[in-house]
C-alpha cells in the first residue's frame, strides 16, 4: 500500500498501562513515502502490527492539522521532532532520510503520567486553567464588544499568547519538566486585556499555586520551551507572569 522508498528503524516506547513498566521496542518499516505525515507513518506501522496479530501503538492525535494539541511524541530527543514550529502531526517524513533510526518516547514528567505507550495524562493543564485561567463573566452579562477599544498591539500580543494549543511540548522539553510557558501564556493573554484586569492578581496566584501542586518542576530560563513550542509562544510571557506574581505578593494588598 505504501508507495515510497524510505526504510526506517523505529524504537518506540511500549508500556501496557500506567501500572506496568515500559521499554523501547524496535520496529522496521519499509516503503515509507516522504509525503506521509509522521502519524501516517505510524498508521502504516499499526496496520502492519494489527495484521500480524500484535497490538498497535497507542498515541494521542486528533485534528492532524496542528491545532488541537493532542499529538505528543518525543522524537529523537525533541518534542514534535526535528522541525521547528510544527506539531507531530504536521511533521512529514521528508524531514527524515532513508535508513534513519527514529526513537519515539512519550512526554515525560511527573505531572504527565503515561497512560499507555505514547499516551500521557495531561489533565494537570486543565486543572491549572480551572484554577483561574478565565474571566469571570457569566453568559448574558456582556456589553457591546466595541465599547472596549483595545490597542491593536496589545490585542495582537494577547492573541500571540492565546495561540497556545496546550500540547505540553514545553513541559516535555524542559529539563525540569516545568509548565511555566503554558501557564504564563494564559496569564499573559488575560493580563494584557482590559477585561482581564479585575482578576489579574488573583488569577496569577491561584494558577501558579495549582501549577506547583501538580508537581511540575521550576523554571531555569533555559529557553528550550520557547524554542520547541509549535506555536512560538514567547518567553516574554514567563517574565510577565513572574512580574505579575511578584506584584500580587508584594504590591497588592489582597492576600489570596
Amino acid at each position, binding site marked *: 500500500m505504501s508507495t515510497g522508498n524510505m526504510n526506517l528503524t523505529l*524504537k518506540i*516506547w511500549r508500556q501496557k498501562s500506567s501500572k506496568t513498566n515500559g521499554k*523501547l521496542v524496535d520496529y522496521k518499516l519499509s516503503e515509507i513515502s516522504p509525503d506521509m505525515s509522521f502519524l501516517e507513518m505510524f498508521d502504516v506501522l499499526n496496520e502492519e502490527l494489527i495484521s500480524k496479530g500484535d497490538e498497535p501503538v497507542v498515541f494521542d492525535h486528533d485534528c492532524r492539522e496542528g491545532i488541537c494539541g493532542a499529538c505528543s511524541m*518525543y522524537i*529523537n*530527543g*525533541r518534542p514534535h521532532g*526535528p522541525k521547528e514550529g510544527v506539531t507531530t502531526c504536521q511533521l512529514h517524513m521528508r524531514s527524515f532520510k532513508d535508513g534513519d533510526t527514529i*526513537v519515539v*518516547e512519550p512526554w*515525560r*514528567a*511527573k*505531572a504527565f503520567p*503515561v497512560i499507555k505507550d505514547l499516551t500521557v495524562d495531561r489533565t494537570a493543564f486543565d486543572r491549572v486553567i480551572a484554577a483561574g485561567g478565565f474571566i469571570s463573566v457569566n453568559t448574558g452579562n456582556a456589553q457591546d464588544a466595541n465599547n472596549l477599544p483595545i490597542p491593536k498591539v496589545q490585542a495582537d500580543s494577547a492573541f500571540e499568547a492565546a495561540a497556545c494549543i496546550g500540547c505540553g511540548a514545553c513541559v516535555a*522539553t524542559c*529539563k*525540569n*519538566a*516545568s509548565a*511555566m510557558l503554558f501557564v504564563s501564556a494564559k496569564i499573559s493573554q488575560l493580563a494584557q486585556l482590559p477585561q482581564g484586569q479585575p482578576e489579574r492578581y488573583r488569577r496569577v*496566584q491561584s494558577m*501558579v*499555586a495549582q*501549577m*506547583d501542586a501538580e*508537581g*511540575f*518542576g*521550576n*523554571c*531555569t*530560563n*533555559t*529557553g*528550550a520551551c520557547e*524554542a*520547541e513550542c509549535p506555536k512560538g509562544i514567547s*518567553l*516574554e510571557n*514567563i*517574565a*510577565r*507572569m*513572574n*512580574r*505579575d*506574581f*511578584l506584584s500580587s*505578593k*508584594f504590591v497588592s*494588598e*489582597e*492576600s*489570596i
Partner: protein
Amino acid sequence: MASFGNAFSSSIGKKLIMGITGLFLISFLAVHCFINALIFVNDGGLTFNLGAHFMATNWFIRAMEVVLMAGLLAHIIQGLRLVFQNQAARPVKYAVVDGAANSKWYSRSMGLLGTILLIFLIVHLSDFWVVSRFTGIPTVDANDHENLFAVMVARFQTPWVVILYVLAMASLCYHLLHGFASAFQTLGWNHKKYTPLIKAFGVWYSIIISILFAIMPVAIYAGFIK
C-alpha cells in the same frame, strides 16, 4: 490578615531568591574584581593591600560581608534544593535528549557549574578569607598594612592551584552568561527595548569579569606581577 503567603515557597518565589541573591553576588563580584585588579598596578601589592585594608576595616563593608555570606548560602542551598526538586519532576528519564537543539549547554548545567564553583569557593575561602579573618595574615607591607598580596603570591606558585582557579573562572563565566539575563527574566524585568541591552551587557560583564579574575593567578604564577 494580609500576608505574603507562599511568596517565597512557590516555584516563582524560589526562583526569586535565586535571582535576587544572584544579582547581589554579581554586584559583589564587580567590587571584588575591582579591588583585586589593583594588583595590576604592580607596585609589590601596596595599592592592593590598601584596598584590602579598607575592605577589612570599613564598618559598612564588614556589615555587607554578613549579608554576602547569607546571600551566598541562600543561593547555594536554594540552588541545590531546586536541582533535586527539578530532578524529581521527571522521575523517568528520556532515552534520547537532544538538548543542543533548543538551548545552551550552560543554561542546562547551572547546577553543575554551581557545584564546581562551590568546590572552588571552599578552596578559595580557606585560602584567603579564613586567613584574613581568622588565622591572621603573617606579614605587613611597607605601609604597615596586612600583606594579603604576599599570601596571594605565595598561593599562586603551585600549578594545580592556578589551574583550579582558571577552570573555576571558566565555570563562573558560563554560570554568569546564563545567570545574568536569567535573573532579570525571573524578576519579570522584561522589556522589548531594554531586555536586548541587558542581555548584551550580561554577556560582556560575564566575559570581562571572568577573564580579569583568571588572569590574576596566571600573571602571578608567570611572574608578571611581583
